[in-house]
């Protein structure tokens, strides 16, 4: 059945089976393969995307449920020119190794910092506890998110859901 939504600022229309997950729709129909699928049962968080401003597991949502929604994926939080402040912070703190959980970490952290730019370490840990990482031990990820808070302060400029494009 036909579904229309906006993804990364672009209006799209796809024809999908009702049982198709949003994750598979993004990956295989729209070729947005930055959204990763790690468990397909909502535990690992690798498939996290931002739906109408909220971090959502795209493996637990059907594509048809996204009709009319505004979706942002890791590709929408990136630019060719240079890394965003959040991405730079991840790189600086060595907050990724194999990179598989990274898009989910970026989308989750972006949603958190957009809402709570003053969150503390305990809050970061609480929110990130829904995203599994097997490489880093989380310590550098938490440091990276905390270090990126400055870029999300309202005074740092206008914020939009498309992210802090550099």
């Amino acid at each position, binding site marked *: 059945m036909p579904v229309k939504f906006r993804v990364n600022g672009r209006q799209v229309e796809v024809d999908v089976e009702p049982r198709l997950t949003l994750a598979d729709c993004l990956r295989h129909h729209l070729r947005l393969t930055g959204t990763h699928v790690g468990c397909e049962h909502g535990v690992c968080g690798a498939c996290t995307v931002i739906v109408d401003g909220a971090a959502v597991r795209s493996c637990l949502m059907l594509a048809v449920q996204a009709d009319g929604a505004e979706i942002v994926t890791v*590709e929408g939080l990136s630019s060719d020119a240079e890394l965003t402040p959040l991405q730079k912070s991840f790189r600086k703190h060595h907050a990724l190794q*194999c990179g598989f959980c990274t898009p989910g970490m970026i989308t989750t952290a972006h949603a958190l910092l957009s809402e709570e730019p003053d969150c503390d370490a305990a809050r970061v840990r609480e929110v990130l506890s829904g995203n599994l990482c097997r490489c880093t031990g989380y310590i550098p990820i938490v440091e990276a998110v905390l270090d990126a808070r400055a870029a999300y302060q309202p005074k740092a400029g206008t914020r939009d859901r498309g992210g802090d494009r550099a």
Partner: protein
Amino acid sequence: MRTVNSLIGSPIERFEDLRFLRGRGEYVDDLAARNDMLHAAILRSSVAHGRIRSIDVAAARALPGVHNVITAKDMGNRVPRVPMRLQPLPEFERFGQPVIAENKVRYVGEALAVVLAGTAGIAEDALGLIEADIEPLPAVADRHASAAEASLLFEEVGSNLAMRFRALRGDASAAFAGAPYIRRERFRTQRHMALPMEPRGLLAEWDAARGRLTVYGGAKVLFFNRRTLAKQMGLPESAIEIVENDVGGGFGARGEFYPEDFLIPFAARLTGRPVKWTEDRREHLMCVNHAREAECDVEIACTREGTILGLRGHAYVDVGAYMRTNGAVGARNVAQFMSGPYRIPNIDIDVALQLTNKTPVGTYRGPGRFETDFFRERLLDMVAQDLGLDRVEFRRRNLVSQREMPYQLATITPFESKDELDSGDYHATLDRCLHEIKWSDKSKLAGKLIDGRYHGVAVGCFIEGGAAGPKESARIVLELDGRYSVYVGSSAIGQGLETVFAQIAADALEVTIDHIRGVFHGSTSYVGDGYGAYHSRSVVMGGSAILDAATKLREAIRTQAAQRLACQPSEVEIVDGVKAVGPGGKSIGLNSISDAGISADGAFLNKKHTYTYGTHAAHVAVDPKIGHVELLDYVLVEDCGRIINPMTVHGQAIGSLVQGLGGAMMEHLVYDQEGQLLTGSLADYLIPTASDFPNLRAIVFGNHPSPINPLGAKGAGEGGIIAAGGVMANAVANALSALGVEPRELPLTPTRIWELVQAASSNKQSV
């Protein structure tokens, strides 16, 4: 101006990150769909042990969209076996795994049939239409049932014992006969697994016209897997290319040759169409190598002053249903590393590899070492308490000292393989770790009850092997633009190879890092012969091969430049890696001679191992009412020889430590007595999350370069995991010492600790 050798030792930010952070990594499932591509789904046995009566695939075949269904029958009488990659002893061949179940099934998850369909959804739908009639046989659910042999996995062999390894040094029976103090204990580590975040996947393309096969989704050991697949498919190796895409973690498990590594290429050739398969997480938990299920009955002999005289006993490793690829390594290492970093002159340990109806085992980061560190370090704390010795002094007295290096480890039979600790100052990491955790202050809290929780501290030591031989290859090409391309036989599994190898190459070529066009590691077509990524070998082996290639390339450049400059090669000096200067200052840019196609192949051959080493210490608070353990502080100190990139080494130390804490505290693949896996999802199989272990630190240095390779490097990345089980168990025992709690089994879940507390208090009441 630049200083030569300024990159090695620098915390260079990783190049890989630039694509990963933007979601532009290309993992195997990210590959674009091919024209006419089929999707594979695999029917897996739900019976742990049984005889196959029939598999009826007619209804599945009839489902619209299904192209074909493959069972063992489609392979005639030639169902290939998954080979042993390491320790390929003939005895293991009897227990080899058919790539698809033939007459029997031996574990839940074993492949029965492969459905090929136009979409993944239809392929999965069709699985439900296959009727597998399996006559159940009694499941061999643990090592005791295995040894009892009332039910046999391989009737034709007549035994469930796959092999027995033995570690020997000195004369253990003489040492025990005269020993003033002996203690015997039984310990157990639980079945758990590597669990990389990316599930496996494969995409195979068969080019019938050219007789060529391309397989995407390789990892870790591409060249061995190509050799295996070539034999199984009756193709020359040169007709197969295995491609490694970005790989979402390895930790020993990902990239070994699994049944699907034959089934998917076989399906592509059979159908003449590209075939793609992506594993789901449930399949991953059932099918990828398990690890760590070991038990020991071990005895230690000491003087009353605390000098260890000997170690002897028996260990039992549950190897699951088949012997495949590296399935013997963990058990072998349980034999060899029971002594760890300590001077134990007399050793006699045998290890039985017992087959059970569970998923076959393979290596998981620190194989055999995590298990033995738990056994040994627990035992050492118990001995220290018995003899009234200080735990730290007891360890200090027995650690191998620097002047004893190289130090011979126990010899392992049946290989007669010998190994020695190469170098280092084990006492230095112990002292540094105690200093960092403030041992003298913290140990005052030992056993204290504060706000309803008991505090405990513990310390433990480890060694980490690296640098497995026999060889690694590298090739460096001077490109037309004057930059260098580096090709290696090593594999990237997420550890940052591209950055670290670029650092090594740039220093060896005396150029800045932007002169390295790229490090290429993802294909069997780049170098003639490669050995991959395991046993912490990439930097030592691949890095040393890059050094060799760089030396040879510089010779080739001098030779080429000498012709242009009309002088002898020995008169040519390469300046900053960008120009060649001859006598009288005549110079030529390297980009202007690169059209001659200058490249050089290098290799590094090695038979010895490096040993990284270190110490862990922990401070915990245990709530005896609910069994919860809070980790208040944890320090890991290790010396891993010459460090190429301190940032990535530190990252791996922390990451591996958290994996180790997972194994110590929560991870457990639970089976019932019917051989059913009860933890088939990530809601059941728990791994650490961001909120579990916030308080830990790693200090990694390179004060003692390895003497056995030109880089002076040792393996790194496994040291964090190895000592975590022993140290956490000792910290809990220390905390609950007033109650007399002595953990002898992992994981230390709240339930287990609560039960230990209950048992200890009822013992006290009954006394």
